């Protein structure tokens, strides 16, 4: 369809160049030139996204690899201690990697069930008005800046966690998990809702006709049928959680420890952010290497996401 239109368009461009009269020919020549120029301009615009991805990758590789070479890949990735300013500096980022992984995992454990239940409710059960209200609320949650979540986390969640678990300081992995699980809700809810709504009505009707209740039908037929879309929403949530920096920085305590649920931790994102302003030399270079590791994580997550979406289409 599109190809047909394209070729029709091309013919018309070619056709525009063939009027006979002299003045007409000059004007048509100008038009033809303009068409050519615009074609080039649009092509350049079209290629910018691709160019940006390449530039970002190149800059991250060029600035991230040297420090890894200097420190040693295994010492860097698997080293359990990050002490860049000690007399004998150590550059192990396993604490950051594992904190990011645990933090993200925790956020998924808490956020996905809540988000999924909400998505099921608004897509299948909620009266039209209530569904619309919840959808707007979720949109609003998505729009609230991450520093605002961080601020509220600092003032409400951190003291609450400190009191509830009787800790000296509430800024820890657990607080970060709570904040992150709220922040991933919008992606989980909106993508799951779309997936649930896309399940053919016949599935539902078949199940209802066999005597299953509405709730049984939705939970045992519709939701399983939408599982790849729901999985995509979970992967999207993972991407959100692992990439969040500011809110995590404000509630996680930010000490470079191996992760403990009630211990102060530093994520990959916050490791980059917290030392960037004052670091120099190998320490600064190592921060770029951390960003490179984070970038690779994100690329892997994107690949998984693409794989799920592609499999769904097939």
């Amino acid at each position, binding site marked *: 369809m599109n190809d047909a239109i394209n070729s029709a*368009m091309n013919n018309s461009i070619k056709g525009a160049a063939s009027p006979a009269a002299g003045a007409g020919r000059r004007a048509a020549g100008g038009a033809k030139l303009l068409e050519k120029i*615009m074609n080039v301009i649009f*092509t350049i615009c079209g290629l910018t*996204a691709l160019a940006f991805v390449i530039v970002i990758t190149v800059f991250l590789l060029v600035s991230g690899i040297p420090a890894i070479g200097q420190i040693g890949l295994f010492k860097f990735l698997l080293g359990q201690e990050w002490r860049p300013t000690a007399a004998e500096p150590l550059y192990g980022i396993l604490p950051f990697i594992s904190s990011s992984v645990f933090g993200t995992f925790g956020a998924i454990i808490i956020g996905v069930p809540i988000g999924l239940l909400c998505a099921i409710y608004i897509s299948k059960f909620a009266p039209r008005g209530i569904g619309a209200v*919840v959808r707007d609320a979720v949109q*609003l949650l998505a729009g609230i800046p991450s520093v605002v979540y*961080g601020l509220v986390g600092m003032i409400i969640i951190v003291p609450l966690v400190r009191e509830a678990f009787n800790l000296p300081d509430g800024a820890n992995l657990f607080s970060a998990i709570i904040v992150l699980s709220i922040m991933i809700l919008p992606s989980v809810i909106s993508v799951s809702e779309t997936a649930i709504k896309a399940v053919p009505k016949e599935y539902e009707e078949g199940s209802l006709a066999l005597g299953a209740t509405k709730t049984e039908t939705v939970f045992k037929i519709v939701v399983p049928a939408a599982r790849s879309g729901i999985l995509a929403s979970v992967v999207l949530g993972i991407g959100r959680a692992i990439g969040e*920096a500011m809110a995590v920085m404000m509630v996680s305590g930010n000490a470079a420890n191996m992760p403990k649920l009630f211990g102060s931790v530093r994520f990959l*994102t916050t490791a980059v952010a917290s030392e960037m302003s004052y670091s120099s030399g190998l320490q600064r270079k190592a921060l770029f290497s951390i960003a490179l590791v984070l970038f690779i994580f994100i690329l892997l997550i994107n690949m998984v*996401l693409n794989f799920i979406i592609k499999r769904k289409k097939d």
Partner: protein
Amino acid sequence: MQNKISNKRKAADLVKNVLMYAATGIILLFLVFLIGYILFRGLPNITLKFLSTKPSLVRDTVGILPNILNTLYIVLMTIIVVLPIGIGSAVYLNEYAKNKKLVKMIELATETLAGIPSIIYGLVGMLIFVQFLSFGTSLLAGVMTLAIMTLPTIMRTVQESLKTVPDSYREGALGLGSGKWHMIRTVVLPSSIDGIVTGCILSIGRIVGESAALLFTAGMANEIISFFNAPMPNNAGSTLTVALYMYAKERGDFDIAFAIAAILLVLTLIINLAAKLTADKLKKGGTGK
């Protein structure tokens, strides 16, 4: 009929229903609490002086005028930079591109851009714009960074609305002897104006809420920058979000942080409402196909 369902099944249904209501209720209650709490703590601290002055160490006063101005500058400049490129690439993908492999690659690149965390944008923006192109820590460097970050948003929404423009419009214009660019300029783009507006609003929302990408590109300065100096290199300035972070985390000044949070929240509400209105219009326009 209802009686034929065993008690076990009834109980299972009940549990699931309760869980659904509970999850939805928790989310709604949380949002109401969040909005209420921020406005309650923030609004009393917003005064005219707070909004219209810059911070002064001598007089020990805090004002956020520089941050408001910086936010406006950055929003305006980013949209000016990203809009033509975003529309151009959407038009390319929808109207010009013939090579399917290339289109797939561009779409994959766009998705990748959309998934990159803002802290990485901040870092790369610092490497490219602040250092490599020597813009210095400046609004300009922040703007260029955010332009890359918001490109996928603009591209996607414009592309969506280009797709809703019926092919018959195009065929009509071409059949009347119009050139391709002339057709795009006079028929396709005007019909997709709602998508362009929606893309702008969504991008503005993203820019206003962004902080991690700006911390190391646009900097943390709180000086007033004049309109004409804003696009120049080496004019650093913090937006509202970055200022909130600095007041809360670095200085522990929570009254000011909540005042800024309240302003940001109101902005978010307005942007969301605007996005909803234009998106609704877009949907209605789309059904005319």
